[in-house]
Every structure is written in C-alpha cells, then in structure tokens.
C-alpha cells in the first residue's frame, strides 16, 4: 500500500510545480513556450488526479490533453504562420488580473467557509471498470450525446478548415 506521507508530499510537490507551470504559461513571451509549459501543467494536473485516486482520468488526461490537445494547439500555431507569436496581452490585462484576483479571493473564502461533508473514504480500488459501468448504466444518454458531440465537432472542424480541392496535397 502506498505510504500516506508519500501521497501528501507528492500532492504538494506536484501542486506547486503545476501552479508554477500554469503561471509560466501566462508569463512567457513565446507562444510555443507557452504551449510547452501548458503540456507540463497538464501532466502535473494528471499527477494530481493520480493522488486523488482517479487513475483512469489521469491517464485520459495525459492522452487527450498532453498528447492530443497540445498537439492541436501546436498545429494551430504552425498553421497561423503570419500571426503574432509573442503571447502578448490586450488592454484587458489589468481588469482580467483584478477579476482573477477577486475570484480567487472569493473561492478561497467559500472554500474555507463551507462545511464540506467529508467522508473518511479510502482510495478507490478499481476506477476504470466502475467508470465503465457508470457510463453504460446511469449515464448512457450523456455518453451517447458526448459521442454525437465529438462527431459534430469533428465534422465542424473539417468543414471550417477545408480547402477547396484545387491543390489537394
């Protein structure tokens, strides 16, 4: 069994590095660097998921976010070659900063003010199989809707980026 101290230490280490990477996404001046830091953030978040004993979600996170979405972002950056890649801010930077700070304050207040009904639960034993059952029993309709959504998104993306067939590569 995993030592409890190890989990706690891992959580704080991963959390700190994740937050640092997330801040770097906002701070770096190069959009490609920002994407790479975002990948690190995604991997860190996956680590957090593991600590929260959600191994399937964690692996799905790495596969989809770090593997696919970051590649999509890179693709989009490369497909917009003439665009600005400085990762700069608009005039709304200040208001956004203030708003973000306020929101953080509110959330922290709410988090500490609320009485969470903590269940002294151990780790989930097998999540993947349980998740599968959840998808196909109570959540079958959302599951199917999600697949429809994915198909729609796929078709939509193809339609949006389709070129006329004059110079098919």
């Amino acid at each position, binding site marked *: 069994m995993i030592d409890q101290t190890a989990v706690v230490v891992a959580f704080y280490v991963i959390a700190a590095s994740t937050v640092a990477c997330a801040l770097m996404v906002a701070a770096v001046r190069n959009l490609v660097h920002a994407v790479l830091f975002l*990948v690190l953030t995604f991997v860190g978040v996956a680590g957090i998921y593991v600590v929260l004993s959600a191994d399937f979600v964690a692996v799905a996170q790495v*596969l989809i976010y770090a593997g696919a979405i970051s590649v999509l972002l890179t693709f989009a950056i490369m497909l917009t070659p003439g665009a600005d890649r400085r990762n700069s801010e608009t005039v709304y930077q200040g208001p956004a900063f203030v708003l973000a700070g306020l929101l953080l304050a509110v959330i922290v207040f709410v988090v500490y003010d609320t009485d969470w009904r903590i269940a002294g639960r151990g780790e989930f034993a097998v999540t993947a199989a349980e998740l599968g059952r959840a998808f196909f029993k109570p959540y079958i309709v959302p599951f199917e809707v999600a697949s429809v959504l994915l198909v729609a998104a796929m078709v939509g993306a193809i339609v949006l980026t389709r070129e006329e067939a004059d110079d098919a590569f």
Partner: protein
Amino acid sequence: MSALLTIISRNWYDIRDLSNLSNAILERIRDAGGPGWLVYVVSALLGAGGIVAFIGGAAIINIWIERRVVGRMQSRLGPNRLGPFGLLQPIADAIKLMQKEVLQPRVADALVFSVAPIAFTVPGIVVLAVLPWGRNMTLADLDVGVVFILAMSSLAALAVFTGGYGSNNKYALFGAMRVIAMLVTYEIPSVLALLGLVLFTGTMNLASIVLFQEKYWLPLVLVQPLPFLIYFISSSAELNRTPADLAEAESEIAGGYHVEYSGMKFGLFYAAELINCVAISAIMATVFLGGWWTYKLDEIVPGWMLFIGKIYAVYFLFVWTRGTLPRFRIDQLLAFAWKWMTPMAFINIVVVAAEVLIWTETGWSAGLLLPVYVAVNGAFAVALIVGWVRFMGPKFSRFPDRPRFYSGIDVPSLPAYRQPAPEATGIGTAPSSTGVA
C-alpha cells in the same frame, strides 16, 4: 525435473520469478527493524533498478543487433572487431559521443533545445515500468495500463517536436512539423488497434491481458492478426523507423529534428529511439504474443527471459522492415493511416464486439468459440487487406512496369520541334523487337 522445480519454487533463488528475490530482500529489511519508508523506497528502487539496468543493456545491445542484422541483410558483416562479435562497438560509440563537444546553435531556443532529448527518453522508460515482466513482476500494476502506454507513446512525439522546434533550423522544423502531423494521424489507428484487444480481453490491465492469454492458451495475435499489423505499422510511424522515418528522413531533410544535436544530446536521442523501440516491442510482446507466458515453457524457463526473447523477436521485425523498405512520402503516409488503417481498425472493432457479444450472450465454451474466432479473424484480416488493396490501392497498372525495347534508334517527330503535326503525341512506333538479356 519437476521435483527440482517444486523445491526451488517460492524461494529467493527461484529466478523464474524475481519478485521472490525482492520479497526476500524486503523481508530481511523488515526483520532487521528497518523503518517502513525504507522498505517502500527499497522496493521501488529494486524494480526501477532492474528496469533501468535492462534499458541500459538494451540500448547497447539493440544498436549492436540492429547493425549486425541489417549488416547481414545488406550482405556484409556489420561491426565485428571490438570485443566478442563486436559487442563492445556500441560502447565505443557511446564513449565517442560523450567525448564530442555538445554544440548548441546560437539562435537555438536554449531551454527547449536542452529539454527535448530528456523528454524524449522518459516516456519509453516509463512504459517499461507498467509492463508485466513475469508472473508477479509488475513494477506499477496499473489498471489502465493500455491507455497509459498509449498516452506515453504520444508524449515521445511531442518531445520530437520540441527538439525540432527548439533547434531553430529549417530542416529540424520540417521534421518537427512532420512528426506532429504523423502523431495526430497515427495515434488513431494504434488506439483503435489496442481497443479491439481491450474489448476482447475485457481488461485494460496489462498483467490481466497476459493472464487472459494464459487462461485460454491463446496468444492474442492469433485472434487479432489485423490489429497486430496495424499497431506494428502505426508504431513504426511513431518510432520514426523506416518506412515511416519521415521526421528524420536522412536523405531528404538530413536528419530532421536532430540535425542540430551533437555529442551526448544526440546520443540521448539515438538511445531513446532504441529504448522507445524496445518499449513498443515489449508492448506488442505483452498484448499480442503472450508476454511472459509461453504455454508450459514458462514453468521451466524464467518468464522474464521468455518475455525479453519475445521483445527481441518483435524488435527483429522492426529491424527487418527498416532494412528492406524505402520511405513513404509524408502525404502518402498520412493517407495510408486515414484511408487504410483507421477504417480497417474500425471494422475490426465491430467484428470483435460482435464476437464478444456472441461469447457472453450465448455462453458457449471458449474451447469451441476461440478456434472459430481465430479462423474467422484470420480470414477476415486477409479478406479486408486484399479487398482494400483491390479497391483502394494505388492504380499503377496503367503504366507498364517494363520498358520497351528498340533495336534501332527512333526519334519521334515532335510538334514543337520539327513540323506541326496535329496528333504527334504518340512517341515512337511499335517496338521492333522484344529484347532479351
């Protein structure tokens, strides 16, 4: 013989199952009053140490195997001077690489440039940690092992992009862009190929997949031949190996993503490529070839040795394709994934789902169903491939393969050249003789 096996089993010197050894060591620590965290750390280090040792050896051995095997295929000897059978040659190469100066272009993106080789190495090593090396020999027994290995193999390609982008070199950028396009494309068939297996075995745990094969005495390659091929091809694309080594494409873009790397940074790329190759071979050996299980053989020969043997059997396939096939063009490779492998994998999943449904709903015995499935799936794979080649394959038949033979000179009159001839596009007359060499 069997008496001997009974005697040694479950003892630390039973090398058929190295977990006995590690358990013995941990027991010793615990008996000596070692603290709990020490046991924890040592148990992690034992497994990790074993895997890292294997990787270190494999990186050396693989270079040697690749060079010797390809050398044989190319009717030459390969390295055979240094050490027995030239086994020390890779070590000499590594020493040479370490001595070389690590150059870094002034315009390179320093951080990205340095991180890329490391990021490229890690996923391959991590994948080896979740594989079942023997009956109880899994370092990290993940329930979602199959998804984990897919996630990790997608990260390696991202590292390749990082290196190519960070080099700030045009050729490297070509490699980077190619690898991104290939990653987006080849992720899909490889996921779909393994999805069929997961459906069939009903588990994503790699150790359970091996146990499934042990239970039914059936290496899954027999029941899933098409996913084996699809996964093999798409992973050779992800591994940058000929015929899909477009990201480095020596003859086109002069090394692609690692064109600017030198010294041990390049060495790391080179070694990591081999490690990733071993990782993919190990995955294929686990899920398709039965991992450590080999009928009754694994009761006598240590399972992990059989597993390593299977890894190298698959690795030989990679070397073989590399030694024999030319490279695709990038658009052909992508079209191959989208138009051939993805639809085939989809059809395969439907078939597997139907088979699993028949199995679970009718409750017929596995002994009856599985041979039928093996036959059906084998025939189905052949039919699908033949059908696709027939209907989707490139149509080269309009061009004759062979040239014509003329016994004398024959220069046609051309419109732009001698006289205006309205339909003088036909070149030459009928061949005057068919030459025989």
